[in-house]
């Protein structure tokens, strides 16, 4: 089964990378999800596969006896899944906001931060604006809110 999984892992990586290289924001997020899926499965596979022997100590024993599934990769993957979930949730909301603000889901239209000044092909650059307000102004706003 490990060999089969090795190909699935390869397939997931390939699919993920292919999706990342698209121009659509949505496909970008799908790509990210596939990549993290692939990495998790990779760790799992390399921890070797054991059928039906979870790392749970039976109630009549004090320790696990061989054979048992390696608990370490499982713990690592659990951590990685949760972290991956957090990051992906953030990424999903990020593309939503990017779409709302830029008004397109085409990544090729999101080049303003890279393209050099004075280059005619660039869309108008929205310069970052850290707003400097006077303290008075700021207080007024805060009270109004």
């Amino acid at each position: 089964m490990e060999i089969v999984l090795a190909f699935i892992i390869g397939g997931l990586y390939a699919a993920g990378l292919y999706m990342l290289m698209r121009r659509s924001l949505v496909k970008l997020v799908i790509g990210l999800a596939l990549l993290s899926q692939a990495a998790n499965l990779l760790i799992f596979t390399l921890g070797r596969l054991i059928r039906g022997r979870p790392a749970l100590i039976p109630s009549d024993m004090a320790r696990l006896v061989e054979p048992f599934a390696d608990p370490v990769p499982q713990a690592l993957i659990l951590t990685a899944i949760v972290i991956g979930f957090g990051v992906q949730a953030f990424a999903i909301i990020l593309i939503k906001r990017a779409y709302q603000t830029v008004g397109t889901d085409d990544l090729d239209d999101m080049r303003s931060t890279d393209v050099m000044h004075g280059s005619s092909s660039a869309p108008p650059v929205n310069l970052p604006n850290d707003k400097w307000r006077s303290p008075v102004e700021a207080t007024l706003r805060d009270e109004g809110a």
Partner: protein
Amino acid sequence: MFSIILSTAVRYLFPLMLLFSVFLLLRGHNDAGGGFVGGLVAAAAFALYAIAYGVPAARRTLGVDSRVLISLGLLVAVGSGLWPVFSGQPFLTGVWAKPTLPVLGKVGTPLLFDVGVYLAVVGVMMTIILTLAEE
């Protein structure tokens, strides 16, 4: 109609799900489960509640601001790690109570740590869900 069926269902489902989430949390140390999954179930319960009765009601039922819940979860987790430090042991060392409780089994700081995880997960999920719902 739909909402009536839903709200009736949720009235019974909600406490059950909460109970189940606590069960998952507590048995995690000895069987499949744990703080993370438990937290997700609890969050799902509140999400259902919000769908059935609206976001403000869900917030009221939750009782605290979801972001406070996040911080509380972190605080409990760190606190469980700091506990042993006061008795001169390294950070996050497990400290166990002597007696074994009937339902919980052994009680110690790792369990407290998992409670922290549970709280943080509920807080995060509620923050996301409620904020999105209000969009």
